[in-house]
């Protein structure tokens, strides 16, 4: 158990008063940036980066990773309380977290979210510890066809998400793909759908869309329904926190499945956002309480949160071992590594084991600390819902627009958030699901790039998705199965129904 002794050395490095203090500061700052939509972990970490220039690399990475954990936790808070995801990866948490808060179970939802996030993160660190050597080999097997297969699997596991019509889901997803194509096309270098606006060259920020669709759209609906949050009357009891913690073991299956999905997506690097969506989709598919999803089902909070955090944690490994960041925040940290004088890559484990294992050890400590700190804040955050809507409503609007502006300091983003808000409202009124559109916006351009790169590699033959490697063939077949499963199951049901009908008539 070579890794184990390395890890113990790592603990010896990470476990000092100074480092523990750094973790606490990092986590608290992280919660702060996570709670503000638009600011988010990548921006927060890059704001903090200059402070680390004069630090020892181990202390520096501890500060930055702790901030990352804090931001991941903070992002879930606003998703649950106000339906505004602070982070792209916590969008899926809104689906059931917000209904729970509306029904007065905010404390329960927040505690569940934080506990499962902590579980996911722990699972991720253990995977990193045990598999660090093997994982890097595995990640090298991924090329464009494999990426495309993973993205397709994510889309497929999400089909039939809403209980509404499949047609509406497809309309929503296609709109999302269209929004994702705006800006510079990475393969040809040409501009698409920018209509001469230079601000659109960088594309439509996914966060602007989310702030509009979820935050503003929700507000409009709340206003129409009479300016009130139902959660307002809920009493906040510390006992609820413990009750929620006690209910955790009953979700063991969801926790395990979501952790595995998260690790897989963090390493491959599909990223935390894809992981949380896929995990939510699968949790719903395999649940016996399918029809409760989207209406405040606790498992619908557990699934995305667990996957989000295990993916976020596992994403650190490819960054250290391969120099491929698995998430936007990991990319910022990688820049930091180079400035501190380290070269991310396979040799880092051999050249600077103190740094690598100090970091991994700090991930154990940092996550425990983050869970404790955020759980302590639950009653405080839940109390926000007791503020009358006439006060909190305008504040949410302000926060939404500040968030939209901070993403890239572009004025056009403010104007874009508005129509997205109206779109979100119209979608809700007409029963179109928003989730497929959001998913398509996040992964659409990546999937497109991967597809077109694959086509260049194979000179236009689709066969590359099956014969490139056993890996891609497996993922593709799984995706196809999931994609057509509703149709297959419908045919089976029809056949059975027909037989049934025949028997009755006969």
């Amino acid at each position: 158990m070579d890794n184990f002794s390395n890890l113990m050395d790592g603990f010896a490095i990470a476990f000092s008063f100074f480092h523990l203090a750094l973790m606490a500061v990092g986590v608290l700052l992280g919660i702060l940036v996570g709670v503000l939509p638009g600011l988010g972990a990548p921006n927060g970490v890059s704001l903090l980066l200059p402070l680390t220039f004069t630090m020892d690399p181990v202390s520096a990475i501890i500060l930055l990773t702790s901030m990352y954990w804090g931001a991941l936790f903070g992002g879930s808070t606003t998703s649950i309380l106000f339906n505004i995801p602070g982070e792209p990866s916590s969008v899926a948490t809104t689906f059931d977290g917000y209904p729970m808060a509306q029904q007065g179970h905010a404390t329960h939802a927040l505690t569940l979210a934080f506990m499962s996030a902590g579980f996911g993160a722990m699972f991720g660190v253990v995977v990193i510890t045990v598999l660090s050597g093997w994982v890097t080999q595995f990640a090298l097997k991924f090329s464009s066809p494999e990426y495309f297969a993973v993205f397709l699997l994510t889309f497929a596991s999400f089909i039939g998400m809403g209980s509404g019509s499949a047609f509406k889901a497809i309309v929503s997803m296609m709109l999302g793909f269209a929004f994702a194509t705006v800006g510079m096309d990475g393969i040809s270098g040409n501009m698409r759908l920018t209509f001469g606006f230079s601000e659109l060259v960088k594309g439509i920020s996914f966060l602007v869309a989310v702030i509009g669709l979820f935050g503003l759209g929700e507000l409009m609906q709340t206003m129409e329904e009479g300016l009130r949050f139902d959660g307002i009357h809920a009493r906040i009891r510390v006992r609820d926190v413990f009750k929620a913690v006690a209910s955790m073991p009953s979700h063991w299956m969801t926790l395990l499945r979501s952790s595995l999905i998260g690790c897989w997506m963090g390493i491959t690097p599909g990223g935390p956002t894809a992981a949380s969506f896929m995990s939510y989709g699968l949790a719903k598919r395999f649940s016996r309480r399918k029809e409760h999803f989207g209406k405040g089902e606790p498992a619908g909070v557990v699934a995305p949160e667990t996957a989000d955090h295990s993916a976020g944690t596992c994403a650190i490994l490819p960054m250290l071992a391969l120099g491929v960041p698995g998430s936007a925040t990991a990319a910022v940290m990688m820049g930091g590594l180079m400035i501190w004088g380290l070269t991310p890559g396979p040799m880092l484990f051999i050249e600077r084991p103190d740094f690598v294992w100090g970091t991994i050890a700090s991930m154990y400590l940092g996550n425990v600390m983050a869970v404790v700190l955020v759980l302590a804040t639950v009653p405080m955050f839940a109390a926000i819902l007791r503020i009358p809507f006439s006060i909190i409503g305008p504040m949410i609007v302000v926060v939404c627009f500040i968030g939209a502006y901070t993403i890239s300091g572009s004025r056009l983003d403010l104007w874009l958030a508005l129509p997205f808000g109206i779109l979100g409202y119209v979608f809700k009124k007409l029963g179109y699901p928003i989730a497929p559109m959001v998913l398509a916006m996040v992964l659409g351009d990546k999937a497109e790039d991967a597809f077109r790169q694959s086509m260049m590699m194979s000179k236009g033959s689709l066969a590359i998705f099956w014969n490139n490697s056993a890996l891609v063939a497996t993922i593709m077949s799984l995706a196809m199965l999931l994609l057509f499963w509703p149709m297959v199951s419908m045919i089976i049901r029809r056949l059975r129904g027909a037989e049934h009908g025949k028997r009755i008539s006969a």
Partner: protein
Amino acid sequence: MFKTKLIATMLASAFCAAGASAAWTPDKPVEFIVTSGAGGGTDIFTRTIQSIIVKNKLMDAPIVVVNKGGGAGSEGYVYGSAEQNNPYRVTFGTNNEYLLPLVAKMGYASEGFTPVAAMALDEFLIWVNSNSPHKDAKSFIEAAKKGDGLRMGGSQSKDTDQTLVSIISEATGAKFTYIPFKSGGEAAIQLAGAHIDSNVNNPNENIGQWKANMVRPLCVFSPKRMAAGPKVTKDMSWSDIPTCKESGVPIETYQMPRTIWLPAGVSPEVVTFYSNVMAKVQQTPDWKAYIEKTSQTGTFMAGDELRKYITQDTARAYSVFKREGWLAK
């Protein structure tokens, strides 16, 4: 009466200007605009300069680094030149400042900027997977002439990497399928996993994989071999890599300048201030360490020398873009 007053005013304002010119220093936070995403080459370039300025107190005003890498960096250039006389926006990039507007309509013009300094020249190499049968550049080029040619990965489309690949094809008759990835880092991993046959990454983008013996350099597009430095692998250092010219690829040099820009409307004193700061940065041991670690060529250019370099570089790229039909209509 009126005339004397006018002359007096003119003199006074001339003095004021002279007084200001000696003493222009930023008195509020300066924005360093990075025209790449976090973790990219331009990002590390900018943040290294920031850390040197902070450590050595070369500037009193605080520095805020902002990443605006959207649209291959054009987001940053649009932002950096939006206020034509704002001396508090310094934009960091490469030769893409004057090359991007040639290939697509970008929302900014390269004339919207005035060059402050070029701090380094980044090198380009031909890399192959370490299991590749091609031991030198010559056999690699020969192999690429046969059949469908070879798969070449690179960062972005119609950018420096693809331009170089086009120059190689033109000069040697080799055929490549160019596959654009999001970054040089991605192209490096794709090569390490043997999903592509080669890439033309900068030293810093492939050094991690080279150290681990996953990839191998064939030659460098530089007039002379690179500086030695410590050994990277067991038996090779940067200076052991032959130049492409000596290995029979008829391309003398292909380098990418790391550049710093100000909006074109600022006064010459402002330009002087920043180029003086950069000149000081360039003399620090930390800067030399950065140059050595990233295996770039440390060259400091400013003023007319830099303008001349830009004109030449543009002209060369223009001919490639024209041949490939990439020029924006």
